[in-house]
């Protein structure tokens, strides 16, 4: 899988490149600012662009804007945005940009090498990845008179994994459940929450996140 890495910190960028190379990725480009990133993406057409949200010149949300620009130019290129702060606002902006092949992860996740590499692969294969912290913040948020309180603990776990962008198959593996059980849970969850069940996993992420955020 071919990736481009964009981060203005040279130290971190080089660490990432080493990690990715060792994990079998081909790093086709590196960038320290949005312009270099966009140029690199246009020429290399990687499977995934891994982008730090804060980049020059203002060190605010240049990375996010670059990611959205890449999505607009070529929806087949996956974008994985890394951020020091986790904000559902930005996660929603990304997911709403087209829902296939987007990821939003807390930057510290890079140290969970196996998880991180899994996330890149999922984004590269057109799935969505939402940081578990974003999801847990939303799921565990106190609510008044919400159908969410009627969910069982297991159903909540399944809901969280759906929101993180996992497929039913991945949920089976995570929770050691049979596919049939997971399917039953998913159906129950959607009917309890009153959301129409989307056939496509990525639409499912969007509708669940929107529901949780409302």
């Amino acid at each position: 899988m071919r990736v481009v890495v964009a981060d203005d910190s040279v130290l971190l960028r080089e660490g990432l490149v080493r990690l990715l190379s060792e994990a079998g990725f081909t790093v086709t480009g590196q960038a320290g600012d949005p312009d270099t990133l966009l140029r690199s993406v246009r020429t290399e057409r990687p499977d995934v662009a891994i982008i730090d949200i804060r980049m020059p010149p203002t060190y605010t949300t240049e990375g996010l804007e670059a990611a959205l620009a890449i999505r607009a130019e070529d929806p087949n290129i996956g974008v994985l945005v890394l951020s020091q702060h986790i904000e559902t606002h930005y996660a929603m902006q990304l997911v709403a940009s087209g829902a296939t092949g987007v990821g939003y992860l807390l930057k510290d996740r890079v140290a969970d090498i196996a998880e991180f590499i899994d996330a890149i692969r999922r984004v590269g294969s057109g799935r969505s990845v939402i940081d578990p912290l974003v999801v847990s913040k939303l799921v565990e948020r106190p609510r008044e008179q919400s159908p969410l309180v009627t969910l069982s603990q297991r159903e909540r776990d399944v809901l969280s994994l759906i929101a993180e962008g996992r497929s039913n198959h991945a949920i089976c593996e995570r929770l050691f459940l049979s596919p049939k059980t997971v399917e039953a849970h998913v159906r129950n969850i959607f009917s309890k929450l009153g959301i129409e069940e989307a056939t496509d996993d990525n639409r499912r992420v969007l509708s669940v996140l929107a529901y949780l955020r409302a």
Partner: protein
Amino acid sequence: MIRRPQALVLLLGIAVASAAAVGALTTTNARPAPGATALHVAAGLSFIGVGVVVWSREPANRTGLLTAAVGLAWFVTDVRYLPSSVAFTVADLVGAPLAYAVLAHLAVAFPSGRLRSRSERAVVVIAYGWLILENLAQDVFWAPADSRCDCVRNLIVVHRDAHLHGIVGNVQQAINVVLAFVVLRIVLDHWSKATPPGRRALAPVFWASGPILLAVIALQAVGAFGSLKGLDAALAYLTPLALMSLPFGFLAGFVHSRLSHLAVGHLVIELGGAPPRGRLRDTLARALGDPSLMVAYWMPDFRAYVDTDGRRVDLPTEQNQRAATFIERAGEPVAALLHDPSLKNDPWLIDAVAAAAGLALENERLHADISAQLKEVRASRARIVEASDAERRRLERDLHDGAQQRLVSLSLALRLAGDQLGNAPEPLVRETLNAAADQLRLAIAELRELASGIHPAILTEAGLGPALQSVAERAPLPVALTVPTDRLPRPVEAAAYFVVCEAVANICKHADAHSATVSARRLDGRLLVEVADDGVGGADPSHGSGLRGLADRVAALNGRIDVVSPPGQGTRIVVTIPCG
């Protein structure tokens, strides 16, 4: 009131007038009609009388002296009644023209008595020079033919030639008319540029200029074309009448201005009734008859003049057509009246108004002083808050771009090191490395919380709405949220954000509430933020420094915080901040 020089001029004028009257009535030489003589004397005397009165009232203003001088010059022509050839020659040479030259000077210099420009000075000098010398050219060709005695004669006649005398005379008359129009042009120019109070002052010359111009043209026409059906006889009556319109108009204006002085009496009464603050200017403007009046107050701390709102006021310069009168009390400047320059022509009025208003102005000055200081304090408070926000943003950014990045790199390096050990025979080392990486992750998370508490990046990046959304998502109780979608000025967003954070934290700590609502919306140029809960209420806003510190922050933006917290009925905090 009449001082010595003025008295002398008056006596001299009366003497000269009497002599002229006697001369005209007793002359054997082309005796004028008694009625014409009476008007002639009245015209000269009216200039002298009005001139002396004005001069004694305003000795610094040359207008009075010039007016009197017109009257005196008017009688120079009458020395021709003296049985002397020298007197006759002088009278013919400078007599009538001198009065018109001084009249032109008066008209151009009116009402300040000063000539306003180099070109005006040039016109006056030319008028004097020309009118005194014009007869010289004519008189060298002329000897009085109608002398009934040979006792007087023209002393400077060189060549007796009636034809040449006539031609030179015609040229002269044409130039006289041109000169009269030049003076008229200047008067009209002054009039068109004058402000309403300025026009009041200019009125006598403006209104008299028409009749006088007509008289001058008629006189020149008679000189050029002869008697013209008795016009010359009529002019002996009409010319003095036309000229008299000036002093009488002047007198009327003077009486009017005396009447306006009565307004000072009303002013004293009004000020005694202590006019409401801020209305002093209107009261003074009325007394001075100058609606454009501005009052500026002296601020000793700033060494500058400010208006009632504490804004700096620029004092008049030559260019901006204003004049200033400075008011002092006990040697200290108190205020300046910025008024129409024409009021300087009546210094008594402006001085009287200034004296009457001194105490009220001092009072108003103190108010203006306090307003100015308050403004300064407010501005500095806003600057302090803004500076502290900037410092918070800088700190957050430093933590983010420095420490956090390094720690993430470090944790990545530790993990990579652990992986590189692979299944090497040192499981303990690997475990230690992993434990270190876990510790590091906690440290990163703590640092993230710290940085976010100092100044949340999302507030700067995405604004109040997403930032409050984030607060609501983190809150340990349900928070219903309504937020604006547009951006607001940065200090307003920061103040609203920190108030909501503090209020939500207080609800969690003290309110024992089930849920809360946070709403922020724009209303009439203000941001209205409400945080309400369904808890125990009874919160005392004077306790606890958190909200008090934030009240200062909000006040720095001219906003306010209200806390309503009846026991048992929840707490409602309402923040209003002007946001343009």
